[in-house]
């Protein structure tokens, strides 16, 4: 049955313009307001998790000088720091925040396809955050099982928070998944079905591609976490034994019998590995757009970049057990997962080459978003290279329980996406708020963050080679750890304090510029993508005024030879005699 696309319908249909303060800013169905709500909540909860990491670092750096936290609290903070950063900050900010803001604007839609559901998504997300925070106020506190929540220890007595904390954690995760599903269905459907005239899939900016594929990954990966959470809740609350084997606990036979802890690990990592790319793919996409814009060059190998995103997304579902080498598995399985893991490095490396080639001979504008984007290429390459070590079974086994993993993971999934988030926040700040941020403070923030994080995580790789185990509250005196390790730990802590403090510069810059910043023009970076071509800045409700934009070219027409300006917006019609980019020419044959 024929069905008219949104861009072909009469433009008479009006959105319900919100009237009151409450419908405009609180119970808002506008994707931009929802995006900002998501972002604010995510950043707030992320700052909280950063506070937790500072407490841990103070303990590790100066184990005898402070008595801020107990060993139990250390585990609780480790757990909550990891969970919040990976799920409640990164996933929520990339997809709920930037996904919401950028998809309709970059695709030329007026809003998400189901705004009401989009609003619900945010409120359920907020609920999940509140439930998680509530775990600090229950008798035995939040769970201290580690962010992977491995059973049996997650629910056996002796682990901090095994009474109420783990239940609260699992409920909060289930709520988050519900929220994500409602949002994610919206993002995918909007990208597929509500693009404007001329916006073909192969003309979409890479940001949209990254967010789109990441959302699909989320919709397929979160179910595994949901199932694992449901099963563990049943184990904990009504005494089933899905994950719980027969055990002696403090000399007492446990009531569980016959379950399989490995099953949980498989379910968790079937979610957990795609989760890495749920966070990384939007970062890949956004960094591509930011690099191209500020280097005034078209992205190198656009179609290759798109296919790399899709290939990485597909491969990310068949590598999960590389997180479980130390759990023990059939050597053939280890071989299989090591192979797929190393294969995934191919499209990823391809993307890194393409970013570098985009910069090659570009007209680099080293402003704040560009600096963060270039910083990302460094941290991501370093984090990716250590991933090659850990992807091999034999190298992974001795390194797995050491600080090497902490260093690798934070480099590739902590620092790298966060640098892109900063780049993106600075890049789109003028569009979101209508004002420019302070450049000097931004650059100060960048250098402190980049150098600071390097001085935190590079030494950790070395600690790992020395065999310093992770997850320990204090190392104490042992034969295999030299005393100099403690000096290094103290140094890392000082660097961490500096990085944490420099985030205050960022917050101050954001708030100060909101009121005192210079007014931004509608397209301060001379960018080509649609969100910079809106009639108002910040874009009004409905985004495009009376008429939807029409797209005539891809998103990367920078420095086209023979053109008057060094950029051609996507809405610019193709005029006769123009040099059309080869990527588009390919389609003709």
């Amino acid at each position: 049955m024929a069905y008219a696309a949104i861009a072909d319908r009469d433009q008479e249909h009006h959105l319900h313009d919100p009237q009151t303060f409450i419908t405009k800013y609180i119970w808002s169905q506008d994707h931009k307001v929802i995006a900002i709500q998501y972002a604010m909540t995510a950043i707030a909860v992320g700052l909280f998790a950063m506070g937790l990491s500072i407490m841990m670092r103070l303990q590790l750096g100066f184990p005898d000088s402070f008595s801020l936290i107990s060993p139990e609290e250390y585990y609780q903070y480790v757990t909550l720091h990891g969970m919040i950063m990976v799920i409640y900050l990164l996933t929520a900010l990339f997809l709920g925040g930037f996904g919401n803001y950028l998809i309709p604007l970059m695709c030329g839609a007026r809003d998400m396809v189901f705004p009401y559901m989009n609003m619900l998504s945010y409120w359920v997300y907020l609920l999940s955050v509140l439930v998680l925070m509530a775990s600090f106020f229950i008798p035995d506190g939040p769970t201290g099982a580690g962010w992977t929540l491995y059973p049996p220890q997650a629910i056996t007595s002796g682990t901090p928070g095994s009474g109420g904390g783990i239940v609260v954690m699992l409920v909060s995760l289930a709520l988050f998944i519900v929220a994500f599903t409602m949002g994610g269905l919206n993002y995918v459907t909007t990208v597929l079905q509500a693009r404007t005239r001329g916006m073909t899939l192969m003309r979409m900016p890479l940001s949209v591609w990254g967010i789109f594929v990441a959302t699909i990954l989320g919709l397929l990966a979160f179910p595994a976490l949901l199932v694992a959470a449901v099963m563990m809740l049943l184990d904990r609350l009504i005494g089933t034994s899905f994950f719980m084997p027969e055990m002696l606990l403090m000399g007492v036979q446990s009531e569980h019998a016959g379950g399989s802890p490995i099953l949980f690990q498989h379910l968790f990592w079937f979610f957990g590995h795609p989760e890495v790319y749920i966070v990384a793919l939007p970062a890949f996409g956004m960094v591509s757009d930011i690099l191209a814009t500020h280097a005034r060059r078209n992205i190198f190998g656009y179609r290759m970049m798109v296919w790399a995103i899709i290939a990485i997304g597909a491969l990310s579902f068949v590598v999960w057990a590389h997180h479980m080498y130390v759990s023990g598995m059939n050597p053939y399985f280890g071989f299989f997962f090591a192979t797929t893991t190393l294969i995934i490095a191919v499209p990823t490396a391809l993307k890194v080459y393409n970013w570098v080639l985009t910069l090659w001979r570009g007209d680099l504008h080293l402003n704040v978003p560009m600096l963060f984007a270039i910083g990302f290429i460094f941290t991501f390459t370093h984090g990716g290279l250590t991933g090659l070590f850990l992807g091999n079974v034999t190298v992974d086994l001795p390194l797995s329980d050491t600080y090497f993993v902490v260093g690798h993971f934070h480099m590739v999934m902590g620092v790298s996406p966060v640098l892109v988030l900063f780049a993106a926040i600075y890049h789109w700040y003028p569009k979101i708020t209508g004002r420019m941020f302070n450049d000097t403070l931004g650059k100060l923030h960048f250098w402190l963050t980049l150098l600071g994080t390097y001085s935190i995580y590079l030494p950790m790789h070395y600690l790992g080679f020395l065999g310093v185990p992770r997850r320990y509250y204090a190392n104490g005196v042992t034969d295999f750890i030299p005393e100099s390790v403690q000096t290094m730990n103290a140094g890392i802590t000082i660097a961490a304090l500096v990085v944490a403090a420099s985030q205050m510069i960022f917050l101050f810059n954001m708030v100060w510029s909101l009121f005192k910043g210079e007014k931004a023009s509608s397209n301060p970076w001379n960018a080509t993508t649609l969100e910079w071509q809106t009639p108002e800045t910040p874009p009004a409700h409905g985004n495009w005024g009376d008429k939807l934009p029409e797209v005539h070219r891809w998103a990367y027409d920078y420095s086209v030879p023979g053109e008057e300006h060094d950029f051609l917006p996507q809405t610019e019609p193709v005029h006769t005699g123009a040099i059309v980019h080869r990527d588009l020419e390919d389609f003709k044959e």
Partner: protein
Amino acid sequence: MAHDATALGAGLTPGLRGIGSDWAGDKQTFHVPWGKAMMWIFLLSDTFIFTCFLTGYMHVRASTRIPWPNPSEVFALSFGGEPIPLILIAIMTFILITSSGTMAMAVNMGYRGHRAKTASLMLMTAALGAMFVGMQAFEWTKLIIDEGVRPWSNPMGAPQFGAVFFMITGFHGLHVSIGVIYLTTVAMKVLRGDYKKRGYEIVEITGLYWHFVDLVWVFIFAFFYLW
């Protein structure tokens, strides 16, 4: 693609490339309403939930040391003497498959614009669904009260049998119950004439969900009752 975007649809490219460029065209990828596209994507996601449940079940069944109860004995029902294996589940499956039939007829009637027929067929589907849930409640009661099966223990063998059974059929029963509510709501709105202007795609979207729930049942039936 260098020429105007509208020409994309007109100049059809043959073969696989054609399919590719058709999908990648502007405005929309699939020529279906938003709700239908979204339902398909949701069902894909839901498929992964059930797949994980069933995979978990298979893993648990393979790893437990205590023997698994024989389903044809556990799920037998006797009518005045001889126990008939799987008879209840056979009737339940028959009912659910029948409801898919009435649903398909409702979709057909919807597109023809017969409001009353559409609504009554949908309500019939909902009634069959409710009947299914009712029989499931009967089955649960029989297992819990008469045979002493609990989520944490099971007199006939592996305790995981009870755990997995209640979890998976419970989750599926929840889907059916939600479907019954969904069907009833949409049927009422059809009857009231809410979709006269907007068209009756919603009936088909509801139907997609319903057929999915049936399909999942076929897998649960195969893996749980026949294995």
